[in-house]
């Protein structure tokens, strides 16, 4: 795995992400500054980590989405390269037009940090091959604006094409408003683009990978990616 972690001013979970990538894949990622116009040669995974790029001023992810490095990411994605955006990364991908929809203020209008449960909807993708379809995983969220919204047609397409990969649910896998902490439409926690190579998700799988610290349900995502990339290589 040759991952590149993008670093925008105000991003703050890049260290968490880099540590996890190294831990799970054995290889430290390249840290790529937002002003770069090209990705390191041989990059096979681009990760946009969480944080508050540009303070999340204006709209979450809006300013970062227009950085020079995003043109390189767009080109990379267009060639089928794998892109993972987590939390602010998801917001940036939406703002950059690489994913549809938008992340609005949480329904409660409060920042929420807690462990949530996610239903993995499909396992036949490079992002979720480390899980079984229908599996429930526990990972933390930490965001104020994670309430996914798109117009009805878009949501229908996302659902119809099986592009919702993660959904907030109860510990036993029921989709239930009580377990949808931010009010996202259809309890959507993570989606992929049409081609299936760009994933955006609000929760932080990178914070649940070490048994000594807590649950390890986030590992599957990174382990699956590493496997998928090894197979492709």
């Amino acid at each position, binding site marked *: 795995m040759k991952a590149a972690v993008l670093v925008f001013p105000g991003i703050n979970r890049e260290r968490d992400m880099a540590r996890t990538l190294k831990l799970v894949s054995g290889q430290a990622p390249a840290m790529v500054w937002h002003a770069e116009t090209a990705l390191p040669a041989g990059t096979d995974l681009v990760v946009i980590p969480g944080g508050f790029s*540009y*303070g999340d*001023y*204006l709209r979450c992810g809006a*300013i970062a989405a*227009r*950085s020079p490095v995003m043109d390189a990411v767009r080109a990379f994605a267009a060639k089928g390269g794998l892109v993972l955006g987590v939390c602010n990364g998801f917001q940036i991908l939406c703002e950059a037009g690489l994913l549809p929809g938008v992340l609005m203020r949480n329904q409660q209008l409060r920042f929420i940090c807690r462990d949530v449960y996610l239903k993995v909807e499909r396992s036949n993708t490079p992002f979720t091959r480390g899980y079984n379809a229908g599996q429930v995983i526990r990972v933390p969220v930490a965001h104020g604006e994670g309430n996914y919204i798109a117009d009805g047609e878009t949501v229908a397409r996302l659902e119809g094409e099986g592009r919702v990969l993660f959904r907030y649910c109860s510990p036993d896998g029921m989709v239930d408003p009580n377990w949808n902490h931010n009010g996202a439409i259809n309890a959507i926690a993570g989606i992929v683009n049409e081609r299936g190579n760009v994933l955006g998700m609000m929760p932080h799988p990178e914070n649940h990978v070490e048994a000594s610290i807590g649950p390890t349900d986030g590992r599957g995502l990174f382990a699956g990616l590493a496997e998928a990339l090894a197979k492709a290589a």
Partner: protein
Amino acid sequence: MKARVTVTLKTGILDPQGKAIEGALRALGIEGIASVRQGKMFEIELDGTADRAKAEALLKQAADKLLANTVIENYRVDVLG
């Protein structure tokens, strides 16, 4: 009846958002913008009442109590009719 409440930062109060937007516009190659200050706008639909003065009073109350943080923000009420 329709109305609009606009909320702006008082002069002298730091506007980190505006500052970041200025920087971003410059980085996007949009030249000629000296400064940006960000405010909020609320488009409000009022029930029934055709009484302008009453509507204004109501909106003032809403702004004072909730829509604006009057320690650092000013507001303005426009009843559009």
